[in-house]
């Protein structure tokens, strides 16, 4: 293990000051559940570890008018147990249910999940679903970055070494149907082979009036699935229609990724998972 200097600032300005001068040589650590793996394997060679896990400015979940704010330092356990999220961002709350296992959920943060920019990050699809915007700070000011622009490629975030994600601002969804599901190689403690979040509203005639959809672990960076949303909007969901839409979704995924060895599984599984998530919309 490399020799780090461990630094724990008392407040956000102090942290931003430190990063302004030493960002290049610093790794930010929140829960550490990604960072420590790189530390142990020797992949991370920096001089400083800046611990932001106790910064109050990064904590808390609150609803301010039309803004649902989730601090970057909020842990997955807090997401799991948040009643506010269960009623305003159910998919996000559900993304914590099968996230790792309890020990990890107790320390892992949503900010770390996003900043790590893994294609398999389980909170990412739900954040996309809610058009989340990351509020990102450095010593000189604040920037608003939409979720779609948080990652430039797999495991590469668009953050500069001087920046910290402070919070995420989500559009809350109250009435409607929301779900998040993931497929892993076992029921707990598994990296997503695939995940999906969906939010659906139907009008009084049974037609889909609003649909948002996001895929996880399928594309290197989060991608919009607007074509599928458009295809279904205004239509009455039937088994056949959903199946067709699932097929479109799989095609859209392959357009982005090309055919890989994993496509043999992922192509049908995307269609299948889509069917499983949207099926409760049929006939109800």
């Amino acid at each position, binding site marked *: 293990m490399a020799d780090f200097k461990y630094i724990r600032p008392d407040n956000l300005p102090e942290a931003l000051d430190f990063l302004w001068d030493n960002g290049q040589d610093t790794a930010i650590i929140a829960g550490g559940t990604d960072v420590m793996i790189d530390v142990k394997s020797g992949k991370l060679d920096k001089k400083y570890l800046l611990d932001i896990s106790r910064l109050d400015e990064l904590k808390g979940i609150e609803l301010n008018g039309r803004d649902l704010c989730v601090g970057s330092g909020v842990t997955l356990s807090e997401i799991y147990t948040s009643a506010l999220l269960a009623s305003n961002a159910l998919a996000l709350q559900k993304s914590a249910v099968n996230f790792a296992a309890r020990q990890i959920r107790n320390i892992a943060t949503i900010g770390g999940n996003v900043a790590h920019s893994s294609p398999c990050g389980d909170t990412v699809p739900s954040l996309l679903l809610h058009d989340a915007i990351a509020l990102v700070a450095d010593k000189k000011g604040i920037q608003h970055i939409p979720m779609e622009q948080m990652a430039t490629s797999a495991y590469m975030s668009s953050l500069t070494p001087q920046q910290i994600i402070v919070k995420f601002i989500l559009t809350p969804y109250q009435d409607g149907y929301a779900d998040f599901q993931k497929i892993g190689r076992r029921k707990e403690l598994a990296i997503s082979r695939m995940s999906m979040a969906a939010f659906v509203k139907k009008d009084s005639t049974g037609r889909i009036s609003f649909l948002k959809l996001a895929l996880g672990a399928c594309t290197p960076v989060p991608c919009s699935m607007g074509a599928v949303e458009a295809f279904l909007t205004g239509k009455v969901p039937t088994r056949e229609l959903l199946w067709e839409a699932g097929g479109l979704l799989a095609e859209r995924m392959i357009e982005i990724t090309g055919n890989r060895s994993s496509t043999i599984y992922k192509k049908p*599984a995307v269609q299948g998972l889509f069917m*499983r998530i949207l099926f409760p919309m049929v006939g109800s």
Partner: protein
Amino acid sequence: MKSEYNSIGKNIQRRDIVEKLTGQANFCADIALKDALSLKVLRSSRHHAVIDKIDVSDALKIPGVVNVFTAADIPGKNLMGIINKDQPLLAHDKVRSLADPVALVAAQTDEIARQAIKVINVTYTDLEPIFDIEAALAPGAPKIHKKGNTLFTRRIKKGDAGTAFETCHTIIEKKYMTHAVEHNYIEPDAGAGYVDEDGTLVIYASTQNPHYDHKEVQGFLGLKDDQVRIIQAATGGGFGSKLDLNVQGFIGLALYHLKQPVRYVYTREESYLATAKRHPFTIHMKTGADKNGKLKAIHIRAYCNTGAYGSYGIAVASRSAVHGTGPYEIDHVDIECACIYTNQPFCGAMRGFGAPQMAFAHESQMDLLAKKLGMDPMEIRMLNGFKKGSINGTGQQLIDSVGYPECLEKIMPYYEEALTNWVTEKTTPFTKRGIGIGGMWYGIGNTGVQNPSTARIELDQNGRVILYTGCADIGQGSSTILTQVAGEVLGIAPEAIQLVVGDTKFTTNAGATSASRQTYISGNAVKDAAEQLARVLLTEGANKLKVSKTALSFGDHSLQIAGHPERSVAFDWLAKRIHEKGVSLSWQGYFDPETIPLDLETGQGSPYATYAFACHLALVEVDVLTGQVSVKKIVAAHDVGRAIHPENVIGQICGGVAMGVGFALMEAFEFGKTLSMKDYHIPTCADMPEVIPIIVESVEPTGPFGAKGVGEPALIPTAPAILNAVSHALGKRLYSLPADLESVLQASIDSGHFGPEEKM
């Protein structure tokens, strides 16, 4: 035999439980030796290569590096292996896999040792590497070992299978594949050691076989018996992998040269790379039955890839061949199982020695036959299953303790209930339910070889009983069981017996903790020792109490006249008296199960003295849209002879089921790719089904109080039962393990379940 026991069948507190629960148990990594040096091995960077030169000069220049050893520093014989000796402690002329150790560094810290191995310069000349069996057997293939690439073939030939197939009504012929599997015990391999005042090398080991370790280390170093002492530290699981040496040899070599305390604790990554795996198998199996479903003939050609070294490969090939028929009567048998060298890191023993791989095949065959014949899977097993008097493929008649029919009977009500009520119940959309049966038999002890155990019981002058056993308790609970056996014979509470376990200075060889053999074999050795001590006590008791020996019974550390507890004589008095008379208070026990070696050409013989039997029922749900499988329930009936400690038996069954779920659905070790637990999935508690353990006691007359064994049997039927259940759910069979997301979804697609409408 007595009907009521004092200790046998009681769930007494386990010997090591308090230390384990309070964190006081000392595992090797916890053993703190003053100024201990850290050891670290440089492993090969080549799959297959000749070593031209090893240059350690740069490593020696690093401050804190104490020394670097190579094969040239081994004073004795640089070869190990419990069955065949083909594995060097440190590679000398060539390397045969990426796991091969090339040089050993001793340094002041782990970190310095790690740096040092990076600057050791090894010059290799590459040889063509071979990874699969086809390539290893191809004409002109490079030889991995001088004797060639086939390590061993076990043949079992009975009757005339070729002709018998011609008269069969129904024949099923299929190919089955299984994957390499990692044991993944909780405690990564570790060891520590020091040189004591009289020059003995004392080595703490995380091991399943301390007395074997003792001989190997002596051999490397050319030392005498009493110059090496192996002490088994608390051992956090083994499942077969800790039957091989892990770090004992390295510790011994460093102690020999440096005379300074050393320690070596594998990281999880090193434990994954350097230790044995379960053999991957390819099995071609052809089974024929008459029109009533009675099995007539079986033909098996199986290959197991043992990687670079034999380890337990010969035992795996041998046992899997014997168990190829499954627990079924078949008159005509033609089985060959070959163990093949390749340049993968080596495979060795893992819970079941090839029987789990074979069970996947024979239990799939039984279901396929039943389907083709229009029979019920239980019916075909009942019809063909071993019963008292059956003759197995090796020509051995099974006389006593054949509990297979009873296991099936115990499962039957659960099976019928599940079939009529559970499978047909309405489920969540796109979920298919299925149930499956897995049957198994398992020979207790090593296959067709003598494998005795010894034990010693001592009465001290204060009347206390001390039991010395070389039997390694690796968490399965043998120490507790052995005290129950001794306690039962001597009429004392098992808890009152002092134990000395797995310390070669004091204990004698009990053989390996493997092959589900310790309860049966070491249990009998302990019983023998206890009975000898009892005889001496009875003689002296009769002298004192002036009644015949038959009138005496054991009380609490005393002998009494049966029915007159006031007329008794205490052990301490007897001990002094016996000692005064010059009679020994220390008695050695011995037991070697009755076996007849298997004929090399025909495999006929008596490979084991007794067999365990089991049957599992699996209830599964398959998500036809994604290939996810959820095991809901396992009902597990096990004939264990007699359950000396029923809770221990249940513990083994539940643990076996967990491992079986992993083997069935998710465990696949990819050599070169699987580096640590982040790449390798074993079940978590979320994946565990409800388990209903059922203990069947078909008493074994030669067993200690009727006991056989359960350690490996616990795992064997689970994967076959799950795979049969998945096939039942989808109407489509899978022929390779694990049945992962990809293969189950493919089966769902192929069987027409994948679509917008749900297929019945």
